[in-house]
């Protein structure tokens, strides 16, 4: 167990920096450290990039790697939050409708925006997809939340079940959009559902970074209450936690950050599930350590996945969702089997 090892976090951070640097350096065009350095120098002096390498670094590679890292951190933290809220280790952010709602919003834009009016599409330009995805995610999650609420309490069980129903509903909507779509539109939907960071831009990085910073600091304050909730709702309330208020706030923060991340990058599966599991096996379930660890590990793993996505079939790109699922699923099963979690008494997976 590494739970009390004081080198755990420093080591994790060093690893993250190394992976970020590799991800920036490697790609269809390799970027040398000297180019990175001189590009930054030119940038801060207000001069244009001196050559193509510097331009690629500043305008493509750096925003992409940063967006990817922040998204990974958000998805992993969201997994920790959701699993804590639902007191169920099999929960992931997609379960309450966030991803499927975003996918529906995006697919509506892909298929209908151009058909209704070409001007609309050119006017709103690249913003339309993220905005609609964000709205779709919020709407779907809110619907799940509102329907699951009865009288005063928010029952976890009904939240899960209604989440499944709303997910099915959104999926059928997305399916219908693919059905009526023309070929390139249908491909857009498919790609968006597999996630990609190829459209990363600086404004996206700044928005997501600001959101992530604020929300990470906010949820860290809830780590004690989330721990108490692991004992059960009644026990948490005996410990003085206003469980309904806490659940409402954490859900809101969580939905906010996942919606925005999904709106920029598309649906990326498995990150929210596998990172918390991996970390629970390494450092235990105390959310005070788990949340920051998930942040760093999520950033690390998704950056690695994106690097693979760019390099495997270079110069072509594999959608990142394919990588995360392809690697994530077997790793997840191995973790469960190896650590005997499935057989554990009391049911880690109950």
């Amino acid at each position, binding site marked *: 167990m590494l739970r009390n090892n004081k080198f755990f976090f420093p080591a994790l951070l060093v690893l993250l920096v190394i992976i970020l640097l590799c991800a920036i350096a490697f790609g269809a065009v390799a970027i040398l450290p000297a180019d990175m350095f001189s590009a930054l120098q030119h940038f801060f002096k207000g001069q244009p990039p001196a050559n193509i390498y510097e331009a690629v670094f500043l305008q493509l590679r750096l925003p992409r790697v940063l967006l990817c890292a922040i998204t990974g951190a958000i998805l992993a933290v969201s997994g920790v939050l959701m699993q804590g809220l639902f007191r169920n280790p099999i929960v992931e952010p997609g379960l309450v409708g966030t991803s499927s709602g975003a996918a529906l919003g995006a697919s509506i834009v892909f298929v209908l925006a151009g058909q209704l009016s070409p001007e609309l599409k050119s006017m709103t330009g690249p913003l339309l997809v993220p905005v609609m995805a964000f709205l779709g995610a919020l709407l779907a999650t809110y619907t799940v939340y509102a329907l699951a609420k009865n009288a005063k309490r928010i029952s976890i069980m009904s939240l899960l079940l209604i989440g499944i129903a709303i997910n099915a509903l959104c999926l059928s909507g997305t399916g219908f959009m693919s059905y009526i779509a023309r070929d390139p539109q249908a491909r857009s939907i498919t790609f968006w559902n597999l996630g990609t960071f190829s459209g990363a831009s600086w404004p996206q990085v700044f928005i997501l970074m600001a959101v992530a910073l604020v929300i990470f600091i906010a949820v860290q304050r809830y780590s004690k209450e989330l721990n108490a909730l692991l004992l059960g709702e009644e*026990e948490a309330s005996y410990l003085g936690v206003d469980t309904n208020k806490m659940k409402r706030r954490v859900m809101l923060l969580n939905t906010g950050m996942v919606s925005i991340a999904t709106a920029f990058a598309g649906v990326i599966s498995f990150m929210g599930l596998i990172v918390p599991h991996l970390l629970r096996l390494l450092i235990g*379930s105390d959310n005070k350590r788990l949340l920051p660890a998930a942040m760093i590990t999520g950033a690390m793993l998704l950056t690695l996945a994106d690097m693979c996505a760019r390099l495997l079939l270079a110069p072509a790109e594999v959608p990142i969702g394919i990588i995360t699922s392809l690697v994530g699923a077997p790793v997840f099963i191995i973790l469960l089997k190896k650590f005997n979690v499935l057989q554990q008494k*009391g049911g880690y997976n109950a």
Partner: protein
Amino acid sequence: MLKAENIQYQIGKKQILKDINAVFYPGRVAVILGPNGSGKSSFLKIACGETNDFTGTVFYDNSNSKNLKKDQLAKSRAVMSQQTELNFPLLVSEVVMMGRYPHFAFNPGHRDIAVCEEIMDRMDLQAFKDRNYLTLSGGEKQRVQFARVLAQIWETPASGSRYLFLDEPIASLDIHYQHQFLQTTKMLAAENIVVIAVLHDINLAMHYADDIIFMKEGGIVKKGAPADIITADLIQEVFNIPVKIVGYDGADKPVVVYHYPS
């Protein structure tokens, strides 16, 4: 002191509690006995402040429980449930520390750590301290939970009493730990804590309770010190099973013997 006045509680049309009045004093262990569905657990839930959907008033010293804030109440009131569902890997010491959550903001202070150590000593848990909670047996888990509950109200608050509610806490313990549990409870009660427990075992109740409340069908049938109120007729009336009360060699307390229907 905890005072319940005219407590009435209903779920839908069913009247669960009919006009309960009772006073509980610090330093005394009060045990509630009664058959299934007699309203014991509902009364406990109302008394401990878990629900406010009832008519009547519960007073903690002089404050109406409906006006007390949860986080404030949690500093002097702890509740032990029959079973706690914790399905995530945590160390035993981490679970015990959860009892101190109402007392610190983000990081536990020296005092919180010292309290947890003292309790783990007292509860024979030092050997388990670094074990994963999920690998413990049912009885061991229950002892850890008791340690957590005790950590919550270990220290005397600046003003007012401390309150400990126990809802059938010993069902999963072996006879040795059942006694140890109730002895610890009794010792704690002596430190000016109001203890209200729901138990099923009449003999354990007679042995450890200072006051017993017999409940049936949402009302109080009889309350008082065990020696004063317990008769074979009363137990038969409440539980609907014929019993005999006997003394045994060298014991100063009687025991209830059941006539099992054959």
